[in-house]
């Protein structure tokens, strides 16, 4: 299937600031979207998901926004902390398997 891609490969953010990670998808049939965080040497860790019948979903310090009109997905992290440094992937699904986009490496500056 078509892949989900991120706009920026890297993002540097000051500790305490908010982070915004963007993702554009192209598969119109995708109806389920997930953000994963991957730390070095570890498997992807679920952050938050959203279905296509929603345009916003909030978790603890994270918010996912979905704009189906322009096929855009974003992850907002509030008050970014050093522990948020990782690679972030968006993934989409129109069946059971996940299609990952290229990751964004987030580096938090002290």
């Amino acid at each position, binding site marked *: 299937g078509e892949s989900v891609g991120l706009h920026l490969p890297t993002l540097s953010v000051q500790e305490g600031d908010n982070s915004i990670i963007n993702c554009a998808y192209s598969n119109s049939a995708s109806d389920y979207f997930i953000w994963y965080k991957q730390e070095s040497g570890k*498997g992807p860790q679920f952050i938050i998901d959203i279905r296509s019948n929603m345009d916003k979903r909030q978790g603890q310090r994270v918010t996912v926004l979905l704009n189906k009109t322009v096929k855009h997905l974003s992850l907002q992290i509030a008050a970014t902390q050093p522990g948020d440094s990782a690679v972030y992937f968006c993934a989409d699904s129109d069946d059971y*398997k996940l299609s990952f986009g290229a990751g964004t490496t987030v580096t938090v500056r002290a």
Partner: protein
Amino acid sequence: AAGVIQSPRHLIKEKRETATLKCYPIPRHDTVYWYQQGPGQDPQFLISFYEKMQSDKGSIPDRFSAQQFSDYHSELNMSSLELGDSALYFCASSSFGGRYNEQFFGPGTRLTVL
């Protein structure tokens, strides 16, 4: 809480050898997914199983095969290994085979082919 277990964590093989990767899903999870992640790349879906039956197939080479056993653990068998097979191999599991059920990833097996 119990997580997905993968073994071995690291594996070094020579070209043309075979390798077997094992995945033990979270208890009561009946669906297993395999992903391959090359250096600096995003994970690519290989294959999945639901209730011991293959449920979906992605970009898995013909040299690879996999199965899910009665206890729901899964094994990925890789033959005629090539240098390009060097990657992280992740297993993920979910419950009830539901589309919107979260996939929990294991720590991965790092395969190095020399």
